């Protein structure tokens, strides 16, 4: 029969193992959050830069490409952590993994929006989290939960609000802002149905509502401004551009 001491020695090893893994995942999650946040700034930066003549791609598309390239780092980090989050461990450490994962989804969905103007599907997000050979389900590093997907996407609306407001001072900004507004309204509407089932989503929905109202107010201001003149908005933009650029 084992002594109590040796039995508890085994427990200690198991508890230490768990705590160490938890720490590793917390640190990795911070790193993933940082890479994702930097990517989001990068996306804003490139997408807002004036299109240069001769560029084959729009600033949005080239932002999206560079952003996605950046985010491959995150995938690699998850691949390296695979042992710590595989199988039933994912759910054990979900609380440690989620913050970084949601920030990653925010960045990824922003890149997707810039290129396609649509919402990235959960399947597409899951596809970025496959093992090296990019093969189906059996190669999942971990399964994407509905909750992480929706909460990550929820944060996207805040970035879109910033993007829309910043665009307004640019040529063609009104069109961009209107389509972004439509997108954010769609997010708000579609996500409302999920609020009872997803914890914390309703808090994020009220941030989304705020963002939506901010875009609405900004678009309103532009409409009011142009309504005073009897010319189509695009023509007005051109006129102003002519005058201010001498």
């Amino acid at each position, binding site marked *: 029969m084992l002594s109590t001491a040796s039995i508890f020695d085994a427990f200690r090893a198991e508890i230490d193992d768990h705590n160490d893994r938890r720490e590793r995942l917390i640190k990795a999650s911070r790193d993933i959050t940082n890479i994702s946040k930097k990517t989001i700034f990068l996306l804003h930066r490139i997408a807002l830069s004036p299109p240069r003549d001769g560029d084959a791609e729009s600033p949005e598309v080239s932002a999206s490409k560079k952003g996605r390239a950046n985010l491959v780092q995150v995938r690699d980090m998850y691949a390296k952590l695979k042992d710590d989050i595989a199988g039933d461990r994912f759910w054990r450490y979900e609380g440690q993994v989620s913050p970084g994962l949601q920030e990653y989804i925010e960045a990824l969905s922003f890149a997707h929006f810039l290129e396609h103007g649509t919402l990235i599907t959960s399947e597409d997000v899951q596809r970025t989290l496959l093992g090296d050979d990019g093969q189906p389900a059996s190669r999942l590093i971990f399964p994407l939960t509905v909750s992480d997907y929706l909460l990550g996407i929820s944060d996207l609306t805040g970035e879109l609000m910033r993007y829309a407001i910043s665009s307004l001072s640019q040529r063609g900004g009104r069109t961009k802002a209107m389509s972004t507004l*439509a997108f954010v309204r769609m997010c708000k509407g579609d996500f409302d*149905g999920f609020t009872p089932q997803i914890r914390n989503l309703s808090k994020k929905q009220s941030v989304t509502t705020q963002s939506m109202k901010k875009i609405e107010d900004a678009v309103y201001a532009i*409409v009011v401004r142009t309504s*005073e003149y009897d010319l189509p908005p695009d023509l007005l933009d051109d006129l102003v551009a002519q005058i201010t650029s001498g």
Partner: protein
Amino acid sequence: MDPADLELLNERLESESQLREKIKEQVLELDKKSRVMLGHLNKVHSIPSSEVPNLLASVRPVLESTHSIHQTVSQLVPAHQFWRWKDMWTNGLRSFVFVAAFVQFLTDGTLLSLADTTAQLGIKDEWKDRFALPVEDYLHGLITLVNELSRLAVNSVTLGNFEEPLKISAFVKDIFSGFTMLNLKNDLLRRRFDSLKYDVKKIEEIVYDVSLRKLAPKKAVSVNTSL
């Protein structure tokens, strides 16, 4: 403890607990309907006014379908216990008030009275000790309506409808001055009423923008400003 007494206590606790579950089910239904209607009405911010009647047509049947839930709840609640259980459905009921009043405003620009709201929600006077619409919840619904109308004033301008803000302004000022005459306690309702001032101010600024630029037909403006 006397076994008979103990059994009695346990029975009472048990039946309350079962009742709670049954009411909860109805409340989930109620919340679902509320979400559906809010989802529909949310579109009013992005469609031209010509499409509004169709939108309202899609909301009205849902609103009517709440009658049967209210009836079910009124049958579940034991006599005299309205005030015991009402917290469970208060949120849902307040959003129904908002929906009914919003539909009315969009239909003919008038304010739905407390009696008419009760009727539209299919709440019967004979249920009054089991299910009713208290004044407080009616007023909460109206405040939500004003919050929503300040958003609508913004978006209708964006959609090129410059008369709507004037109509909204007159309507909201009427509600606002009504509220100032009520003797509200220092509670949530009072705090939400204080927030109405911001909505009124925002709507006034929209009317200002429209008037300054002479965007609305003359007549609309003068009607409004005579209030």
